[in-house]
């Protein structure tokens, strides 16, 4: 691991200051010399593997602003501070009741220990688990732009079928992000240029020709909060995650579903797909096909076909297309059968 300087700022503005003054390059945050650390469950791992090589770490856990650690339930929204731990949000009774999808996407992620450590801000920014990205002896366009992509013709069973490019097919593995994109969340960001609020759907970037640029954030920008609007579909919502083993594994395929029903008919559907795409993935076209329809198995299947219409399999991951469709069909029908 590269030696690093360790900083303990006490306020968001001083954290931003350190990041601004210590860093000169235009690199994306993940390649910057100065990086933030929260739970460290993603970054410490990648530093030990030599994938991330910051020379300065800014610890966010010493920031004193109380809102960073609070969950606020408002009439029309839930606000999560960026330093709230995954376990705190998953176990919060109001979150579980008002929006089961949010709690379930956290409860079925990682392990009890990891959820106690990992922050929500760090969670949404977790980097891919692509085996060739993790092992520095392989060519990888995300880790070393222009070096090639070893996964393309390699063992790509875990890789994405949606949102891929000729440069990178790495999956985005996070679960919580699928809930956030389905529910139309926003993130509050603070940086040298001031504060801004960004649609969660705009936070992550598809790989395109620059898979090394993963988000819309600059190196001096900090996520301070995540806000999820509460809407008629929030309480009738769930997260279905399909894995190689029953627990403590990333999704092969998952579906985040929220429904607003008018009797048998769908007034509005919210759908996101995990484990199958390069970024958190909202299936808007599939949502549209359900509008006004009676949600039976045929309608669910038709929506699933639309959701995967543009899927591009590689040698070992074609199974994710039928698996992803079945996951979505089951999630839609199970959500329909929930009490609203």
């Amino acid at each position, binding site marked *: 691991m590269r030696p690093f300087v360790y900083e303990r700022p006490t306020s968001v503005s001083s954290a931003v200051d350190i990041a601004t003054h210590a860093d000169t390059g235009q690199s994306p945050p993940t390649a910057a010399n100065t990086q933030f650390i929260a739970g460290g469950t993603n970054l410490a791992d990648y530093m030990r593997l030599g994938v991330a090589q910051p020379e300065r770490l800014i610890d966010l856990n010493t920031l004193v602003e109380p809102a960073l650690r609070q969950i606020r339930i408002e009439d029309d929204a839930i606000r999560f501070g960026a330093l709230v731990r995954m376990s705190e949000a998953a176990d919060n009774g109001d979150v579980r009741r008002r929006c089961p999808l949010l709690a379930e996407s956290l409860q079925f992620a*990682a*392990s*009890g220990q990891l959820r106690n450590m990992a922050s929500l801000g760090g969670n949404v920014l977790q980097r891919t688990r692509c085996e060739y990205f993790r092992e520095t002896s392989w060519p990888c366009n995300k880790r070393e732009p222009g070096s090639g992509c070893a996964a393309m013709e390699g063992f790509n069973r875990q890789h994405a079928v949606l949102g891929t490019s000729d440069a990178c097919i790495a999956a985005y593995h996070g679960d919580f992000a699928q809930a956030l994109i389905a529910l139309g969340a926003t993130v509050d960001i603070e940086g040298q240029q001031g504060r801004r609020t960004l649609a969660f759907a705009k936070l992550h970037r598809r790989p395109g020709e620059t898979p090394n640029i993963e988000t819309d954030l600059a190196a001096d920008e900090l996520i301070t909060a995540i806000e999820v609007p509460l809407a008629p579909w929030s309480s009738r919502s769930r997260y279905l995650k399909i894995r190689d083993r*029953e*627990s403590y594994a990333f999704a092969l395929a998952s579906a985040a579903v929220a429904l607003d029903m008018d009797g048998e008919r769908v007034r509005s559907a919210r759908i996101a797909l995990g484990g199958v795409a390069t970024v958190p993935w909202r299936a808007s076209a599939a949502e549209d096909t359900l509008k006004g329809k009676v949600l039976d198995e045929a309608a669910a299947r038709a929506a699933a076909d639309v959701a995967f219409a543009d899927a591009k399999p590689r040698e070992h991951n074609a199974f994710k297309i039928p698996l992803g469709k079945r996951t979505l069909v089951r999630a839609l029908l199970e959500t329909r059968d929930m009490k609203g």
Partner: protein
Amino acid sequence: MSEAKIASGLSRRMFMTASVSAVAAMPLVNSSKSADQPTSAKPAGPRDLSAVSMRINKQPYNLALDNRTSLLDALRDHVGLTGTKKGCDHGQCGACTVLVDGKRVLSCLSFAIMNQGREITTVEGLVSTDGELHPVQQAFVDHDAFQCGYCTPGQIMSAIGCINEGHAGSEDDIREYMSGNLCRCAAYPNIVAAIVQARDEIRRA
């Protein structure tokens, strides 16, 4: 608790007791700098040692550590508490589980320096002063909840966290909320049975 009750676990128990007294007798390591001196005042160079102070099993420690040192390596290599095990060093097995301020975490993914001022509990800190095993330890002995024993300290620390969190309600809950602790010997049924017993005993107490 009588020695006879331990049966096959006798030598293991004696080992635990021995390692506890060894720790108690050990002097504070590298107690050069003052306890809560903030490093942010003037960050040192990347290769300078940093002062880290924490309480480990109720004893204060002042350490001088390279920033890259994990909490796991600090415990094992700098403090000499080798009860906490290194399985994968990448957050994937749970062998390194300890309690930080009462919550179970993975010490391999935590930089020691980020634990400044915290209260760490390792498996060596569970035995009471009169030598009685913690209910979870005793339950693991009673149910033979191990074979090679390598995962056991992590299982025990995680089980304590799991019970304290209120996630040990049913056997299904236990399996789900203990899934972060892998056991290569697959002692899982016995581990679940041990946690059920310990949960009930802790609830009664």
